[in-house]
């Protein structure tokens, strides 16, 4: 047993820390918040150059063939600077779905391009019902002339406005369970009948879209995997993306804790640094416990998905439930301990606070995942 990071992973962390501190400054993030794209071509090219866009893809497809524990290191660092842009949607949603469910041809076509920074993708899954279960998939894929026709509305789709291809979760039929009949389609940009609308969001570092399909035709080979059997692959993708999200959240929470302890050391009230007061000390200690526990569960989940361990789903839900609460609490305490300054637009704390909130409701909140844990431990 060795439950720490390897020297290579520590090196990746150091590299990422340095790169992001230089390239993804608060000024860069704020500029991206104001723009629809949320990323610059230059920055995206540099991510590709670092090899991070293909980090978890096989080497045969231009990736580095690394695992989720490695990715965890990177995600923590990205969370630390609330990195904007379509990394998460491209690499962890669209790309991973192609990796998990795509045909060899689809993988060959897309993964290398993603890794090289030449294509962006995302996952069009949730609908206006905001459900995370298979019953929430109502978008219809009707067979027609050897291909399919898509109809329906997807909501909360990350970065769809930037995507060169969408992985669309649609229903090709009804079965005994809601899971049966769910299929995945790879739909390239520009497909007729597909409309993408960017929506203003609270967390401006995350761009969300509405994607509507009106009799949108897709060819037969757009189908990923077996018709009506797409749900298990989707679950695997979401499980992995959830773990990556948790890692990103851990990094953000750690940064808030760092900012807060730094501030508590220098801000003076009643003649002493505020960090002298137990009111501040005890809150800071609680924050540390939350952050460390969040990391422990996230690292475990990363290891479990890497190993394809049978408890991977449980590990992912445990992590998401805990990390969600932890980041929300830590970000809230960070603002509180900063006082008025923490409530200003100028201070970076709100970027973390809002990211914590948007992450909370991505792939299910803590209550949802606790109930999942209850199911998975057979309560």
């Amino acid at each position: 047993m060795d439950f720490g990071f390897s020297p290579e992973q520590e090196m990746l962390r150091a590299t990422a820390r340095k790169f992001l501190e230089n390239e993804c400054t608060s000024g860069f993030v704020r500029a991206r918040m104001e723009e629809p794209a949320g990323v610059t071509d230059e920055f995206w090219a540099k991510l590709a150059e670092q090899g991070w866009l293909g980090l978890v893809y096989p080497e045969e497809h231009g990736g580095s063939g690394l695992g989720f524990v490695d990715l965890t290191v990177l995600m923590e660092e990205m969370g630390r600077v609330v990195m904007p842009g379509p990394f998460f949607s491209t690499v962890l949603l669209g790309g991973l779905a192609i990796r998990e469910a795509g045909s060899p041809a689809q993988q060959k076509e897309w993964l290398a391009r993603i890794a090289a920074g030449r294509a962006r993708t995302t996952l069009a899954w949730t609908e206006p019902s905001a459900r995370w279960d298979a019953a929430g998939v109502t978008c219809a894929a009707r067979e027609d002339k050897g291909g399919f026709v898509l109809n329906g509305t997807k909501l909360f789709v990350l970065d769809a406005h930037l995507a060169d291809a969408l992985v669309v979760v649609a229903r090709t039929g009804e079965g005994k369970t809601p899971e049966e009949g769910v299929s995945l389609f790879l739909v390239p940009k520009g497909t007729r009948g597909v409309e993408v609308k960017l929506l203003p969001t609270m967390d401006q570092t995350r761009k969300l879209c509405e994607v509507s399909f009106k009799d949108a035709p897709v060819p037969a080979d757009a189908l990923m995997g077996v018709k009506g059997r797409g749900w298990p692959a989707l679950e695997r993708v979401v499980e992995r993306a959830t773990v990556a999200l948790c890692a990103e959240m851990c990094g953000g929470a750690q940064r808030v804790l760092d900012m807060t302890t730094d501030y508590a050391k220098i801000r003076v009230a009643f003649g002493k640094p505020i960090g002298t007061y137990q009111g501040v000390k005890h809150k800071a200690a609680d924050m540390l416990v939350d952050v460390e526990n969040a990391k422990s569960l996230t690292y475990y989940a990363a290891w479990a998905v890497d190993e394809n361990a049978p408890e991977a789903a449980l590990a992912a839900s445990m992590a998401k439930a805990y990390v969600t609460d932890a980041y929300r609490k830590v970000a809230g305490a960070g603002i509180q301990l900063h006082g008025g300054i923490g409530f200003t637009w100028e201070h970076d704390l709100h970027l973390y606070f809002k990211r914590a909130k948007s992450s909370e409701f991505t792939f299910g909140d803590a209550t949802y995942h606790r109930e999942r844990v209850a199911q998975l431990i057979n309560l």
Partner: protein
Amino acid sequence: MDLSLTPEQEAFGATVRAWLKTNIPREWKPMGSSEIPRAEQYELLRRWQHALFDAGFIGLTWPKEYGGRGLTFMEELILQQEMALAKAPPILNVLGVGMAGPTIVAWGTEEQKKRYPAKILSCEEIWCQGYSEPNAGSDLASLQTRAVKDGEYWVINGQKVWTSFAHVSEYMMLLARTDPNVPKHKGITYFLLDMKLPGVTVKPLRQITGEAEFNEVFFDNVRVHESQVLGGVNNGWAVGLTTLMYERLTLGFGLQVRLRIALEGLIDLARRMEKSGRVVTKDPVMRQKLAQLWIDTECLKYTGARAITKLLRGEMPGPEASTGKMAWVDTHQRLQELAMEIEGPYSQLWKGSEWAVEGGVWPQSFLRSRANSIEGGTTEIQKNIIAERLLGLPKD
């Protein structure tokens, strides 16, 4: 112990109710959350407050000779409740009515008392509060804005921050240091500052909601006449404290009723939204949270009633008056968090998204609610005060 009203009080309530029914502006749209006046509503709210003034429904407890009605806190409470039930707009000159007016009535010269209070009530003159400074947050008394005597004038230099309404205010309640050589509480003076004086600069301060509800205010050799001192030179700390006590009580009434409105809005929201295909109000876990908020909100009403009873009896308010703010903050922040939880992914959609629920009002009020535990004394400071003043625990 009796929560019912006298026939006279019932009649007063009925009068208010009837008046509200026909006088709430048609353009006013209640938003289902605790409301802070927003810039785009200022004109409407100014007219609204003036109408309240004309009808005699503001400044109820102030002396008649200074524009008030000379009534008791009971009528004030009834008024607040009726306004809440009618989802009436808030008062725009909230700091003038809640703080400046009562302080001037308590400490002012006869001339000051004739000059200011009535125009506060009518909203002819809006007031802002110049207490907080960048380097004196919780430790208010360590403020550094200086006032130096020069003939009949005081010359002010320094900076205030978190000044709501500064950009639309005619006057500021200004605390400035007039004697740097005595202990910090003893060298502060309270000024009634004309915001149009040369050297006053107001700079909006953007907050995490993206709006600029607050301002920074800079003073560059601002010359204030000595007649604008309130309550005597170097007596500003005592004068300022009056205001704070009064603020907590009267704002308290309003806060509870607005919280109740927000809660009803939240329950409406919960009835409309679904989680995993089930209406939120039917989810046992959410029912627990909603019920707890209901209890906490109602509780504030009865704690308030206990405090008012003491006031009406001419006694000093007890602990129940001071715990109110803390309990309100905690309840309101939980309410706003729950709104986010109920909306789930929809909570991420900001105003302007056509999919945003209720126009995106909840995410915005959620963000705004984070300041509740900071503004008007952080929760940490409130707890220190409660522990020291009410429980007699020793100072550090």
